[in-house]
Every structure is written in structure tokens, then in C-alpha cells.
């Protein structure tokens, strides 16, 4: 075989081996790189537009808080928008003594407030005034929202962050010629954050809590329901914290949490879009490579004890009835969890799903019905069914109808066509998630963090494909039982507006 022949042979081989471009699934597109300090970098090259989504996920969330830290992971996320020793300030050296004075005053005030009615009200008033005065004084050094200003000026879009039970994520979309700006700001933020304007921001979080949990009837029910479902495990505490928790969070606590966990070995970075992976690795090495690792986030030791009987939770509100039904189930990637994914889709995916067909279309007991997994996935969690009863039907009627559908799962094997439809849906979803830089970055960081590998995304459909009708019956019989069940309602308060 001469050279030319060899070349042709090789080309043919390549044609056979290389699938058509879209046939190349996620497995071939993700590039992984781990820095010496433990930072995990995941990249996907997509040149649809000259833009990049950059997500940083820290594997620390509200589940990792101690009881006196409830709400801290989330408040810290807010605080990490306030700048560093060089950004967000005109002169950190001059600012720092004032920040220390603010902290001293706040600590003294909180110690007095913690005594509740026995506290010295006059002294609290004085300290509050002093705190306000000091914070106003410190403002003169603040360059307001400088991260935001710099990113915005450079065309950054969707600059944001979110905190969940399992982790905390910081994200932005940026024109691809400015990726280095992201690296410069985020590596600075990882090492040199300054939690200035702390006590004003704590008030902002209190307003966020009123907005999302207190004024929203469904938010209130979900919060109460979680707390009832997890007596021991921290999944039961609200991510934002209870109101009294928030009012005793301090900058000192937030800094301790920050310095303990915010480190490259607890971080996963996903960069998706118009990038050159080699150049991106070099960029990330240059900006993040020298950051020292810190305490790895350890597993939560508490295990929720088995439920001893059905739980019922009622929330009174100025709102029409709503219904939640939940069952404890294992963590993500447990063999039974894939069976729950099948059950989830059977019950509520689309207009042909069992609960929609039965409750919404045929019996018309409810106008909406859905199922989901929550409040987190890293640890054993809940399979939740929610429904909106249609008047004059009551939540109790809806509950009964749902129960009948759950019973069916225990006795009647699912059909091959139903299973095939689920696999078809998952196939479509696999492609669809690749159509957005942000969506892909989200999935890569999320699953890398909670399952240990982004490959969960490709293995998931293969695992679901192995679920048999007998598995569904077994899992339904094991978990969807009365002593493992909780039911939550919103009941209309007497005398509320009609």
C-alpha cells in the first residue's frame, strides 16, 4: 500500500467511524480539565454566536449550614456581588477599619437583641443608630456594584447567582472576545472578596424572603411542608433561612463560611460557547491556577430517620386550596432513582400522562397537576405530586384520585409503548439541552456537582432504558405507601376576602 492508498484508506475509515456531525452527542463534545488545585473545568465548543456562557458552581449549599448558620450560604451569595480588596472600593486600607467597627457594633447589637424581651431596648436603639451612621460613613469608599458595572459595560448579560440546598452557582453570558474579563473578575472574587454593605444587604434578603415565601401562599406551603418532612436532615430548613435566622447572621459568620469553603477544589467551572478549548485551559490556569485549595465540603452526617406514619400539614392562607403529596425516596443515581424518573414521567409528562388524563381531562377534579423531585438531590429526598383542585371539588377528592393512580402503578405493569415514549422524550431532551450555552453549562455543573460526573447526562437514558415494568411495580410498592407519605394543604382562612 503506497502513501496515497493509505491516505484514501484512512479517509474511508474516518468516514465510517465519524458519525454525521449532529450524531456526535454530548460525550464527544465535552472537554474536561482538572487544575492541580482541584478546580474542575468543563468546556463545550459551540460557534452558533460569538458568545460564551460561564458558570461557576461551588459544591456548598444550604444543606451544609449548621443550625446557627441557616440562610448563610444564600446571604453570602448576595455578599459576593459587593466587590474585592481592589474592586468595589476606592481605598480598601481606609475602608477596612470602618468595616471592623461596623462588625463590632452589629455584634454588640445582636447580642442584646438575642435576649429578646429582656434585652435593653434603649441600648439596641443606640447601637442601631450607630450602625446606620457607620454604614453610611463606609459608603464613601464604596464603588457601587462595580462587578456589575464592568460586566455591563462590556456587554455581559444575565449576570446572576443562585443558591440551592446542594450548591451555589455564579453565572454570566459574555461576548466571546471578553472571556478574559470573566477570568480576571471571578478569580479575584474567589480569593479576595470583601463583604462590605453587609447589614443593608441582610435587609434586602429579608425582603426577598417576604416576597418569595411569606406573600406567596404556595411558597409558604412548600416551606412548611419541607420542614415537616425533614425533622433531622438539613433539607428541611429553608435555603433563605427563617426570618429570625436571617436577623442574626453576621459578617463574621459569613466570612468564616467563605474562607472555609470557597476554594478551587470545591468549584466546578463550565465554559460553553465560542471558545478555543486549549486557549481557555491556558486562561483558566493563568487566573485560577495559583489559588490554594481549602477544606473539601464534607458529607452531611445526619440521616433522616424513617417516617413513622403519615404526616399531614395544613397552612391557612388568603388563597384557594392547593395540594401536595410526597414520599421519601433515595438520592440521585441510586438504582431506584431511575425508576422514579420513569414514574415521574408516566404520571405527569405531557397531555398523555396518567395524572393529567385522569384528573384534568376525564374527572376534571383538578386544573393542574405536576410531579417533581425536591428539595435537593445530593441526599435522599422527596418525590412530590402537586395539584390545583377545581371548585367545587375539594383537595380531599383530588387526593383520593391521585391515590388510585398510585395504586395502579403497584398492580398493573406499564406497557412497552409507555416506556418507549419516555425514552423518545429523553432522546429529544438530550439534544435540546445542547441548543443553549447557558442550559448546557447549567447541566454540566449541576450533575458534575451532585453525582460526581457530568457523564450522568449521557448515562441517564441508558439507565432508564434498563428499567422494567417489574421495577416500576416493585418501587411503587416499596415507597408509595401510607407510612412514607405526607400530605399538605392550603386552606382558605375564615373571614378572608371572598
Amino acid at each position: 500500500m503506497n502513501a496515497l492508498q493509505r491516505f484514501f484508506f484512512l479517509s474511508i475509515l474516518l468516514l465510517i467511524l465519524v458519525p454525521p456531525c449532529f450524531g456526535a452527542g454530548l460525550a464527544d463534545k465535552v472537554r474536561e480539565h482538572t487544575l492541580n488545585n482541584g478546580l474542575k473545568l468543563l468546556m463545550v465548543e459551540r460557534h452558533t454566536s460569538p458568545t460564551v456562557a460561564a458558570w461557576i458552581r461551588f459544591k456548598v449549599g444550604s444543606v451544609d449550614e449548621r443550625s446557627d448558620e441557616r440562610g448563610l450560604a444564600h446571604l453570602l451569595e448576595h455578599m459576593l456581588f459587593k466587590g474585592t480588596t481592589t474592586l468595589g472600593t476606592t481605598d480598601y486600607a481606609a475602608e477596612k477599619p470602618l468595616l471592623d467597627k461596623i462588625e463590632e457594633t452589629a455584634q454588640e447589637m445582636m447580642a442584646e437583641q438575642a435576649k429578646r424581651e429582656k434585652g435593653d431596648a434603649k441600648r439596641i436603639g443606640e447601637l442601631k443608630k450607630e450602625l446606620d451612621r457607620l454604614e453610611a460613613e463606609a459608603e464613601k469608599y464604596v464603588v457601587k456594584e462595580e462587578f456589575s458595572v464592568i460586566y455591563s459595560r462590556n456587554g455581559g448579560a444575565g449576570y446572576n447567582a443562585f443558591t440551592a440546598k446542594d450548591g451555589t452557582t455564579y453565572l454570566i453570558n459574555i461576548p466571546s472576545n471578553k472571556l478574559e474579563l470573566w477570568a480576571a473578575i471571578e478569580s479575584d472574587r474567589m480569593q479576595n472578596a470583601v463583604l462590605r454593605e453587609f447589614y443593608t444587604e441582610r435587609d434586602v434578603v429579608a425582603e426577598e424572603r417576604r416576597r418569595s415565601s411569606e406573600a406567596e401562599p404556595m411558597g409558604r406551603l412548600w416551606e412548611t411542608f419541607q420542614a415537616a418532612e425533614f425533622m433531622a436532615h438539613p433539607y428541611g430548613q429553608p435555603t433563605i433561612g427563617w426570618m429570625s435566622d436571617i436577623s442574626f447572621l453576621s459578617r463574621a459568620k459569613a466570612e468564616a463560611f467563605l474562607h472555609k469553603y470557597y476554594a478551587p477544589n470545591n468549584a466546578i467551572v463550565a465554559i460553553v460557547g465560542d471558545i478555543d478549548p486549549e486557549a481557555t485551559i491556558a486562561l483558566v490556569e493563568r487566573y485560577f491556577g495559583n489559588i490554594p485549595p481549602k477544606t473539601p465540603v464534607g458529607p452531611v452526617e445526619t440521616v433522616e430517620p424513617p417516617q413513622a406514619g403519615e404526616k399531614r400539614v395544613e397552612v391557612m392562607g388568603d388563597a384557594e386550596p392547593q395540594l401536595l403529596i410526597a414520599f421519601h425516596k433515595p438520592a440521585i443515581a441510586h438504582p431506584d432513582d431511575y425508576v422514579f424518573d420513569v414514574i415521574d414521567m408516566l404520571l405527569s409528562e405531557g397531555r398523555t400522562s396518567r395524572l393529567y388524563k385522569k384528573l384534568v381531562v376525564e374527572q376534571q377534579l383538578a386544573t393542574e397537576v405536576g410531579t417533581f423531585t425536591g428539595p435537593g438531590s445530593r441526599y435522599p429526598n422527596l418525590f412530590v405530586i402537586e395539584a390545583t383542585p377545581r371548585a367545587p371539588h375539594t383537595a380531599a377528592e383530588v387526593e383520593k384520585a391521585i391515590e388510585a393512580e398510585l395504586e395502579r402503578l403497584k398492580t398493573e405493569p406499564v406497557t412497552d409503548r409507555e416506556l418507549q415514549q419516555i425514552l423518545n422524550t429523553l432522546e429529544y431532551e438530550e439534544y435540546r439541552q445542547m441548543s443553549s450555552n447557558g442550559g448546557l453549562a447549567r447541566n454540566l455543573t449541576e450533575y458534575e456537582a451532585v453525582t460526581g460526573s457530568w457523564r450522568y447526562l449521557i448515562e441517564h437514558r441508558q439507565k432508564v432504558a434498563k428499567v422494567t415494568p417489574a421495577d416500576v411495580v416493585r418501587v411503587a410498592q416499596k415507597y408509595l405507601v401510607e407510612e412514607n407519605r405526607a400530605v399538605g394543604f392550603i386552606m382558605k382562612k375564615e373571614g378572608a376576602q371572598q
Partner: protein
Amino acid sequence: MITIFTRLVILLAAIILLVSCASPAVTANPRTMTFPPLQFEVPRSERVVLGNGMVVYMLEDHELPIVSMTAYVRVGSIYEPADKVGLAGLTGAVMRSGGTRDTPPEKLDAELEFMASHIESGIGADSGNLSMTTLTKNLDRTLELYGQVLMTPAFREDRVKLAINTSVEALRRENDDPKGVADRELNKALYAGHPLGRHPTIATVKNIGRVDMEAFHRRYYHPNSVILAISGDFRKDELLKRLTATFGSWAKKEVDFPRIDEPSTRVKPEILFVRKDVSQSVIRMGEMGIDKNNPDMYALRVMNYILGGGFTSRLTQEIRSNQGLAYNVESEVNVGQRFIGTIADETETKSESTVRTVTLLRNIIAGMAAAPVTDQELSLAKDAIINSFIFGFTKPEVVVGQQARLEFYGYPPGYLEKYRDNIARVTKDDVLRVAHTYLHPNAAVLVVVGNDKQFDKPLSTFGPVREIKLEIGK
């Protein structure tokens, strides 16, 4: 003699040296970094008109084996009769849920979901949408069903009843959400007396039947009223053949649109209060703004960015960041695409700081008209709008949909191409002038939903208050 090998070693050593010289890492200062210019042209899709007048925009993209399609249809709730408010929305929903002449609803749902294809239909204030996504391998059959839903929906009686019952339940629940209540009451006040200010009630919805939906569809759904936007994994010539096969026999028909008056350009200033037992007040403010043909649009966009358009805005910096009074505070200029739009502000604060926050909101808005913005504010707003422009073009379906909508609403040619230049031309004087012309915080509509027993001061501080009593479904 230096061999090739030695030369290579020397070269390698030089590279290693260079690399080690570069350590410790050279990092840049975010305040002063500069970047190479971004090369970007607004992507173009192809426009074709079918024989029956249906306009088609196509953008091929073979990254993923998916095809997406949306039809924009000249229809809307503005055309529904006053005693049947809700008809347009229900017609849109039942076009999809009620099956077609050839495919009953159960079969339509089962077939689509087995293929993992999606068809969804809806009708808003001034446009109807019928969207579809499918894996390429199922394009033919999904397109066939899509054509049926668009042209020959059956509005089966039991599905009509189901949609009405669902809608009644949603209306019964509307007052559960304080933010929803405030938004609704603001819209009703701003567009009072105009179809855009109408809102369905249980009575108007119960007054709708199958014949109404069928007639509404028959009157407005014709090929010459449709613009199709298609993107994804297809070949243009093949797709055109399929489109002709699907829609070719759909006959053209001139539509007799009811005359809709322009909304009033001035609102009646009012303070509206809705009592709700909650710990946080919902605050909404609004007045009339502009439509897309108004040349002040660019200056208003810049003005709004500075006032309340993002994290760096005056409203967020003062009300949220400096005073900790709210989590969410923003202003928006809704540029009307067909009719004049609104300028609105929103925030939520604990009951005890309600009047204080409204006062601040009004003062900050008034400040926009009192003095010119700073050079820094102006340049930040313009840079942000211009440099983030590109994020309107990150997905093929968004690009093609945008081009379809420009034609649908009759934007002038070159609107997108000139957008960044038009923003760049805005001056401090322009911003001051539009703030002065369009912002009247003390003569706007103010809506507060909350528990007045806990307010820091009575709402009547601002003038006479009209209380709206909540009634279910009315």
C-alpha cells in the same frame, strides 16, 4: 553542525524559558482591560412567499437534529367582543387541545408525544402563535399535524368545556397572588376604555361557546395573515416542497379586521389601593409611553437603563443597595409594537416602609427630569445596550423569529442593523428631554396591594385613594 534534533531541543528550551518567564501568572486589571473588537453581523434568514400569500422565513442550522417553527398570525384579543372577553385566548388553546378534523385530540396528543414532538398554540393581545419543535426524523408527520391544527381545528365540544372550566378556575384563583392583582389593576387603569385594558371575568368566559371559537378561527386564520419562521436541521428546497404540499391548497382570503381605536395617550392620575393580609406591599406605578414608530425610543431606552433597567440603575442602587428596602425594584419602557405602550415601575417592600418607598420611587423618577444624567451613567447605559445586543442572536430560532416579527409588526427596514448606531447617537440632552416629556411620577397611576394597618403613613399622604374591593372572578 547542528542537527535538526539539536535545533528542536534549543527551540523547546526557548519555549520552556518563555513560559517560565511568564510565571507568576500575568493577570489583568478588570478596570482597564481592553479587548479585540468583536466581529458580528446580524445573521440573515431567507424570505419566501408561497402562492397563497403565506410568508416564510427560513434559517438552516445543522448543529442538532431538531427543527423549530412558529407561525405569527394577525389575530388577537383586541378583536374579541366585549361580552366575550377571553375568547381569543380560549380559541388559541382549544385549536391545539380540541383536535382537528382528521385527528381527534386523544390521537393528536398520543402521536405527538410518542414522537417527542411539540405543537403549542396561543393568542395574545395582538398576535396568534402556533409553535412546533420536532426531531428531524419526525418532521414530515409533525408538519402534517401542525398544518391540521392551523387550518382545520375541530374544537371538539368536550374540550371546549374543559378549557372554559379550567379558565374559570384560574379566574377564581387570580386574587391569591398579590403581585398578579397589582399588575392586573395597573393594566386596567392604564388602558381604561380600550380593548387592551379589558380582563376576562367568569361571566364573560361562561358566555363563550364552541361556535364562537370556530367563527373566530374562521374569520382570522388565513394564509395571507400568517408569517412562518422556521429554523434548524432541514434543506431549504426540500422544506419548501413540503410546505407547499401542506399549505398550498389553503385558499387566500381577505380579512375584515374590526377598527380598533388608539388608546388614550394620557392616563387619569389615580391612587388605587387593594387590601390584602400580607407582610409585604406590592407597589406598581405607570403611565403611557410610546410606540415603535416614535423616534424617542432610543433615548427612552437609554433613560430607562439609567433609571431602573438593571443592577447598576438608580432605583436599584438607592432603594435596594443603599436602603435595603426591597429585593426587586425596576422600571420598564414597554415600547408598543402596534399601539402605544406603557412606562411602568415596580417594587415590593415590607408594610412598614410602604409610603417611604413610594416617596423614594417618585423622587428618583422625578430626578431624571430635574437634571442631566452624568457622563458616566450615559456611557455605561449606551455601552451596555450596544455590547449586549449580540445576545438577541444566540439561537437560530430566536434570530428567525425576530426577523418574522419585524415584518409582522411593520418595523422600518434596517431597524436591527441601525439599532446600535441609534443608541450610540443618544445624548445627555436627549435623555433629559425624554425624561421631562414622558415621566410624571406625581400624575401617574399608583397601585398598592397590602395591609394598610401596618403602613408607616396612610396612602392618602399622596392624595385621594380609591379602594378596589376584590371579588372572585369579577
